[in-house]
């Protein structure tokens, strides 16, 4: 396949031929972060298989950017992804959070934005997990801010993340071993 540009990548991803789409997203990494906004639109609005291909192209760019020695590309990808989140459908926004979790440096976390995402009812749990993966001082500060504001089970979830990151959080205890869900099935023959 000849070297892709943003335009040729987008065109190939919308091909009716699944092999052309597959080859396009597989080679998307080197196209770079400038393609991310257009790919996100395609992933949000495209036909099912086109949207999947666009989503996979975004992941390829993230993994290309995360390779050792590509700091400029990585930083640009983080900026581009960060600017996308607020305008995306929920499931795609979650995907973008997980993309960020692979390549974001702790110092790049804006604590105010991070806390808002953590307290977002739709994105909070994914944000918690991604902060746990990044795991530096800023990530911990955001989790602590969320812990102070959250209640109930989500506070327990944040507490577990903070403990994994080495923080002393006595309460609430981790409920991971507490059974919660019952079945209506009865033992046959009893």
């Amino acid at each position, binding site marked *: 396949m000849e070297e892709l540009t943003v335009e040729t990548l987008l065109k190939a991803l919308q091909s009716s031929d699944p092999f052309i789409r597959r080859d396009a997203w597989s080679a998307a990494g080197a196209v770079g972060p400038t393609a991310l906004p257009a790919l996100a639109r395609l992933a949000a609005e495209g036909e099912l*298989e086109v949207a999947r291909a666009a989503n996979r192209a975004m992941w390829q760019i993230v993994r290309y950017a*995360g390779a050792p020695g590509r700091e400029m590309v990585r930083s640009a990808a983080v900026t581009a992804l960060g600017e996308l989140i607020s305008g995306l459908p929920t499931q795609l926004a*979650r995907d973008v959070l997980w993309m960020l979790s692979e390549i974001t440096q702790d110092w790049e976390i804006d604590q105010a934005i991070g806390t808002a995402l953590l307290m977002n009812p739709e994105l909070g749990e994914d944000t918690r997990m991604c902060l746990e*993966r990044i795991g530096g001082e800023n990530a911990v500060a955001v989790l602590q801010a969320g812990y102070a504001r959250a209640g109930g089970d989500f506070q327990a979830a944040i507490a577990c993340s903070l403990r994994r990151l080495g923080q002393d959080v006595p309460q609430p205890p981790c409920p*991971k071993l507490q059974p919660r869900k*019952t079945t209506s099935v009865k033992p*046959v023959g009893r």
Partner: protein
Amino acid sequence: MNRKERDLVARRTFLQAAGTAAGAAIAAPRLISPRALASQGKPGANERVRVAHIGVGGRGASLYHEMDGLRRKGLCEHVAVCDVDDRRLEAASKLVGPQADVYRDYRYILERKDVDAVVIGTPDHWHAVQFVHAAECGKHIYCEKPACCTIEEGKAMVEAARKNKIASQIGSQGRSQPEAYLAHRYLVNGNIGRISRVDCWHYPSPVDKSHTPDGDPPPELDWDLWLGPLRWRPYNAKYLHGVFRWLLESGGGQIRDRGAHVMSCAMWWMGADGTGPVTVEATGTPPEEGLWDSCVEMQVTYTFKDPDWVLTWNQPGEPVPPEERTGEEPGGKITRPGYGAVYRGDRGTFHHWGGDGGTWIEKKAREWVPPPGARDVYQSPGHFEDWFEGIFTGKKTIMNVEAGVGVANLCVLGNLAYMLGRKLHWDQAKQEIVGDEEARRLMSRPQRHPYHL
């Protein structure tokens, strides 16, 4: 080895080794004192192991049937079954009988003091969490392979098993097949010389051409519990029982499924348990469409040092037709002709097919008669039987969690090298990927609350 000797290999069980009449509904073997067993929180010698099954559809149902052979020998009883799919749970209850309690949430089982052991037959993404939780509750564990989906999960499993002193067995049962013993003995006695390369091969993965959109889960399924540790995603009929295998985040494709069999045999026969590669390189061809994202075709190279050897995974590679069987051999038929490995030594080659319950090997190894002074190797009495020996005696099982995690790590690293499109450097002593921050982060995957380690 003649027919009689082969049958002896096949029939030898730890019951017979312990001098106990096989098939009699009597006590477990008295290998250590009942008081010692009881004081260690293990079943006393006059007790049957009280087993609960977590995940009872698909492979989980097969595990129940295999385990039932030990119940018929009076060694255990099935006290509970658990599944997040009510239809599967009902079917399991009919199978097991009214004495077994039924649960949707496995944690009800873990809080029961009268359950000695659990058999985990859930999808791969649940293995590590349920293993660690069960170990923390003092249960002995049989866990279906692959052991784990991430490096971090594997570390947690090993630590939990050690800390809680439980007996564990990972379900790479190929090691326990009679042919695996014969192959191991043949290779360690230098019949093909020094082995410098093992090439595994396997047929390609399927492609999902259904164009199935996300939707609502069926009423019998608890989708939240099915996903468990995975990040939330909407239900999709192509991401469920069985077919989860074809998604990287859950099943990991053929390499994590069958790789956990073929490479398990390779690590065992090469004496490489506890070791790991120094580099991992991978290329692959993803599906052209559909939800599934694991490789259709794949090539992975693992380079080991001190001793130097190379292990490769080739999908499809160069399949070797299995030697014809007469039907007189243990096992009776070739159940897994579609995958295997070629061992390349400086004095010849050796072929192995399958690697699970359908393990099969070349005739020259099956018929090799050890000369006086030949080195013998451990012969498993059967995969479940070997686990029970571990429960009763504290001995290390043939596919203990350390070995199981070591093999799973190969599969995990192969997929990571493919996903990232670059060579990975692995520090076996530290159990870490080095020199690549993104890859290092992907050694773990934070889990959804409260289904986490």
